[in-house]
């Protein structure tokens, strides 16, 4: 029963920390997804681009190497990398290490979003491209009028799921005390020398966030299906 009592005490005293942490986690995730979408769209376009010099497709190659590297190394490693590298390259960033962390998260998410977008485009039936081209539309017109609008329906639910995983992944950024929910656990842990109780609280908050969002996505997915 000690645990319950401690949880109540912690909540009474530090409720505002959890509130700030939750807000920061959501904000961090939203920014990450937003820039992840921008970066991911660019990478996806590079990967489907037909631009070539001889048999080499430079844009495709760059994007592929980038995506494979990001997906093939741990996020924590990437966070450390940018945490040390960026202030070294741009001394003005010395003071704001949080920026480096956010940038690393965005660059990481971009690679995953690129794959989501590419898969969404590839999932559109090949016959759609042929039908549009046989009407006389060029490749670009076909992509804009026929392929992308259908791909969006495949991409949207997957992007929302990406948002849910990012909410969880941002906890790694607490390694650098960026003020997210997990950082608040560390703060309280340091102040009270209690670990289980604040972990339970933080865990429940994470769960409520991701569970609610997942249920919302399921509803969205059903809506998209019926509007087909």
């Amino acid at each position, binding site marked *: 029963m000690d645990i319950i009592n401690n949880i109540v005490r912690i909540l009474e005293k530090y409720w505002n920390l959890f509130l700030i942490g939750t807000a920061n986690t959501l904000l961090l995730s939203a920014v990450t997804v937003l820039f992840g979408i921008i970066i991911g769209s660019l990478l996806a376009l590079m990967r489907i681009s037909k631009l070539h010099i001889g048999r080499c497709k430079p844009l495709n190659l760059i994007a592929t190497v980038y995506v494979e590297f990001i997906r093939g190394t741990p996020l924590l490693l990437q966070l450390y990398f940018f945490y040390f590298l960026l202030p070294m390259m741009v001394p003005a960033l010395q003071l704001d290490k949080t920026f480096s962390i956010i940038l690393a998260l965005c660059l990481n998410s971009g690679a995953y979003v690129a794959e989501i977008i590419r898969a969404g485009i590839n999932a559109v039936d090949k016959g759609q491209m042929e039908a549009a081209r*046989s009407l006389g539309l060029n490749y670009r017109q076909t992509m804009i*009028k*026929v392929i992308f609008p259908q791909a969006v329906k495949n991409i949207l639910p997957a992007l929302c799921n990406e948002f849910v995983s990012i909410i969880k992944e941002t906890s790694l950024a607490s390694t650098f005390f960026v003020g997210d929910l997990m950082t608040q656990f560390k703060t309280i842990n340091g102040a009270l020398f209690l670990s289980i109780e604040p972990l339970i609280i933080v865990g429940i908050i994470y769960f409520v966030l991701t569970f609610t969002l997942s249920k919302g996505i399921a509803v969205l997915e059903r809506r998209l299906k019926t509007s087909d």
Partner: protein
Amino acid sequence: MTNSNYLIEVSDLHKNFGELQVLKGVSEHISKGEVVSIIGPSGGGKSTFLRCLNLLEVPTSGKILFEGEDITAKGVDIDLHRQKMGMVFQHFNVFPHMTVGENVTMAPVLLGKKKQNEAVDMAKALLERVGLADKYNAYPQRLSGGQKQRLAIVRALAMEPDVMLFDEPTSALDPEMVGEVLNVIKGLVKEGMTTVIVTHEMGFAREISDRVFFMDGGVLAEKGSPEDIFSHPQNPRTKEFLSKVLY
């Protein structure tokens, strides 16, 4: 050597998919207003031949003249030629994110052939003709297979093509819907539309065609009038094929 009455002229057409030779030298011509059916066993190259005509498949070698111009030549704007070659697919390939009306009006408006209001009028008239007038604002998901295929035909007609290419237009349909699609095609043929159709509907091919091509093993194994092909086939492979498909 080019006959001005020829709409499409194919000479020594080859198509390989990797090691596989699908077309092994096909030479033929299709005249304006002519109706040609292509029959033959699966894997014989019928669909590949048809898809080469509007370069959905790029030939490995050989030449295709469309309205006197070599469309296989470098620097040809194939999109312009495709606007004049309507194509209908086995699996309809209607655009699911557009209404029936948008399916029809999208290409002519986007490609500058028609103003929006003209395109809408034309779409309504064409849909009326194939019995889909009341579906103008519906989405294709609500249509039966036969209705989807009729829509696909109208979508191609909206570009006012000089030739219609049909790639097994009834093969994916439930039997009771085959008739409604064939009737639409028959109507087009009666109006003088140049038509090339790959089909397994032998009775239909016999009824509407000026000429029938029997394709097997990547070559035009036999060609002639429907009477020649169906009643007096000369090539043993044609005889064997027909004996299997006609009971």
